[in-house]
């Protein structure tokens, strides 16, 4: 399994993702420059967190036009794994690879803190190592992570089970109190219909080692790393 980590000007989780892939998971790592028009044979492309182009105007607005995004769109069409984390999720929405948009947190404040996530899909390449209905602890760090989609889009997402992660309390209850940013339906992460493009606001790469306060994020990286085999077989 070869992971590609995209670097835009203003990206900052690239090195953290790289660290986890390379040092913790021990998978192959390839950084992809935003001006590259070549995914260099990566099996899973990560769009990491940060403030690509300063997030000026709107988060992800300018980044979506980078040459690498064209490739990523085609890669996704071919069924390649694309994983947007935080800013990466925002970029995927802007690029139309995922529905909806991420707007200002309801508090209007940036939030960096631990959240609990209810894992609603475990049949995905990204979550296969999570247990059914598992609650994982993953930190968020964003100012614009409030998920929005029009009612029709939202109900389609729900009906087809495209919500992968929802903010919940420690006991797994999806309650307003556990919603850190005002996301509709407490949505923290969604997947496309085909099941190969995931976007999530929380940062699994920040919790892949227990010394950083928790290691639940590792499950997601391991899921992807382990999925290589299945992709080949299927």
């Amino acid at each position, binding site marked *: 399994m070869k992971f590609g980590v995209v670097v835009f*000007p*203003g*990206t*900052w*989780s690239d*090195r*953290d993702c790289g*660290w*986890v892939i390379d040092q913790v998971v021990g998978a192959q790592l390839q950084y992809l420059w935003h001006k590259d028009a070549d995914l260099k044979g990566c099996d899973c492309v990560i769009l990491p*967190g*940060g*403030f690509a*182009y*300063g*997030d*000026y105007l709107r988060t992800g607005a300018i980044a979506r036009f980078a040459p690498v995004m064209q490739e990523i769109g085609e890669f996704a069409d071919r069924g390649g794994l694309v994983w947007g984390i935080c800013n990466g999720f925002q970029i995927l929405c802007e690029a139309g690879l995922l529905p909806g948009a991420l707007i200002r947190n309801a508090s209007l*404040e*940036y*939030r*960096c*803190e631990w959240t609990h996530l209810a894992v609603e899909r475990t049949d995905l390449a990204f979550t296969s190592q999570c247990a059914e209905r598992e609650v994982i602890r993953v*930190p968020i*760090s964003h*100012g614009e992570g409030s998920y929005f989609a029009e009612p029709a889009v939202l109900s389609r997402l729900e009906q087809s089970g495209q919500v992968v992660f929802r903010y919940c309390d420690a006991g797994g209850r999806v309650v307003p109190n556990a919603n850190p940013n005002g996301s509709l339906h407490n949505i923290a992460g969604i997947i496309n219909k085909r099941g190969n493009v995931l976007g999530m606001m929380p*940062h699994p*790469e*920040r919790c892949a*080692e227990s*010394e*950083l*306060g928790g290691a639940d994020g590792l499950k997601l990286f391991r899921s992807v790393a382990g999925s290589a085999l299945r992709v080949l077989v299927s």
Partner: protein
Amino acid sequence: MSLDTVDSRRLREVALTPEEYRVIVEKLRRPPNMVELGMLGVLWSEHCSYKTSKTLLRRLPSAGEAVLQGPGENAGAVEIGSGWAAVFKIESHNHPSAIEPYQGAATGVGGIIRDVIAMGARPIALLDSLRFGPLPGSRRHFDGVVAGIGGYGNCIGIPTVGGEVYFDECYANNPIVNAMCVGLVRVDRLMRARAEGTGNSLMLVGADTGRDGIHGASFASVELDELSSERRPAVQVGNPFLEKCLLEACMDLAQTDAVVAVQDLGAAGLTSSVAECAGRVPGAGARIDVSLVPRRERGMTPYDVMLSESQERMLVVVQRGRESEVERIFSTWDLTSAVIGDVTDDGHLTVFDQTEVVARLPIDLLTDGAPPRRLAGVAPEPAPSLRLDSLPPLLDPGESLLRLLASPNLCSRRPIFRRYDHMVGDSTVVAPGGDAALLRVKGTRLGLAMTTDCNARYCHLDPNLGAQHAVAEAARNIVATGARPLAVTDCLNLANPDRPEVYWELEETIAGLAQACRALELPIVSGNVSLYNDSAGTSAIHPTPVVGMIGVIDDYAHRLEVGLKHEGDFVLLVGSSLNDLGGSEYLKVEHGTVAGRPPPLDLTREAAVNRLILAAAKAGQLRSAHDCADGGMLVALAECCLLGGMGVRCPALRPEAPLRLDAAFFGETPGRFIVSVASRAMPELQTLARRHHVEISLLGMAGGDTVEFEGQFRLQLDQIRQAWETGLSF
């Protein structure tokens, strides 16, 4: 020589005194032209020249085994082991923040980051130290500054891992905004900003130059009075995105040997960065052509270009002939770079506008020519003394505890630090909320602890002793994580030193810092002075010498945190309590007075207690540790419970005479920690304590969901949490 050639309004505009002007004319043997006058004005400002504090600052100790770079460079550097150096510095941005809190604070963060980058280090952490007037009156300052610090740090992707915030009337018009940055670099890649090698090129990289903040440096050197409305356009808007690109490009640059030095552009812009860079090499000079400087605006004069304080710019000294390599690195990051001049050996800074010479000044006149100001200090009236026996006895310690925990100076800082990304970098092992923050050094077992501290109320009551306390408290915070204090950076925030009492405060503050750092063997490797923190008609600020400190733990697996961990662990007080309440938060909150002197400080005992904690931590005897500071023992104990999510049961506290109950619970005697230990580790800890001649006493046992002193008070943890967590919600 007369002032005929220059009118006094012009002098005031560049913030030079007639005496200083006379010195300039004498040294130059001619009157300076307007560009030269402007350049000298900024570099001779207090902010750049330290003319008031320079001689006093020499008293600070700056040598030490680990020191790789002391004061004089963009930041200090110490060796921390495994071939790594920690680079760090603190800086003030008080005046800009008073006027435009968000941008003032944001650009303060941007500036200190560039100082660390200039040393070739990758910035890994930010801290802050903030002071405001009381809420809700100072909301605008508070909200703007906190948002600005987060806005810059979050965007650039450097975690803000610690800091401090206090509220006091004296800061209502003069908020204090200090930012500290810590970076890492391999010892052998540490860079110095020296313009070495005649003929090497000077390149300006990063943002285009606009008319930002012209006279900003001189502006930071005057009182905030009616003048400031005129100078308001001096506010700059930061671009953290651009700085992120600049940072990455500079990291790439540090990998090549095409580069001789990197120097940030801060206060006084191009003038000071070129002069400082050349000034560090005896005999060196520089030649620059302002027409080559990329500009954001039309119609800028050489004066504007030389004095502009546009943010996010760096000066790079490049090996002659290798400019294109540098240009390539910057263009990869979509950054402009331009060769604007070269290094000479004539000891002068010569400024051209194409072919015309618009300024020519000796480097040493710029960097070192400002005549030191020798002022006289006069001790002010001492603060009212405190007679303990006139205080009513403590009736309900539980009620007092709740009020103290809810007071803005002691309550939870979560509403602040959760707005800062404190995790990016995957290194934050101990996050904000406890004592010092602790970051791991990836690829090693090393942990780097860092903190900022200052109890300015103590400094107000006794600037010398207060400054000593600031050092001691910072050291305790480092020690409470299990790390060994290593080195210090300081930011001296004071009022107008032209007033004899303030100058006296400055002298005393520096004397106190020096004494404490000597006693604890802590070199001061960098720092900053911010004077004139007073505004017409309102009171001056308390002397606020913020101490930034770093420390090292050899294996961060042995780190300590504040929260109680296991039911049934013994909870102990390390160190002994004095019968003292001077300057305490308890006096302020419960009795509405600020009086007495700060608690006595025995630096030898501090060192002994610190050594004990470190030895016990290394031996694995401690489950948690927290120092006692503002609010005293009971507040510290409550914090151990709150952060551990676990209560404590204690027998009644019956201090031996003459120790009063209020002093035992809420007195702020230094040199004390609350620790928890497994019962089986008790005997070893007792032996160790005896060996270090430190007193330890049993307070109680961890567990349950109440905090209780039998027969004295009993509170639900939830109730305590409620008080503590809502203290800032005005």
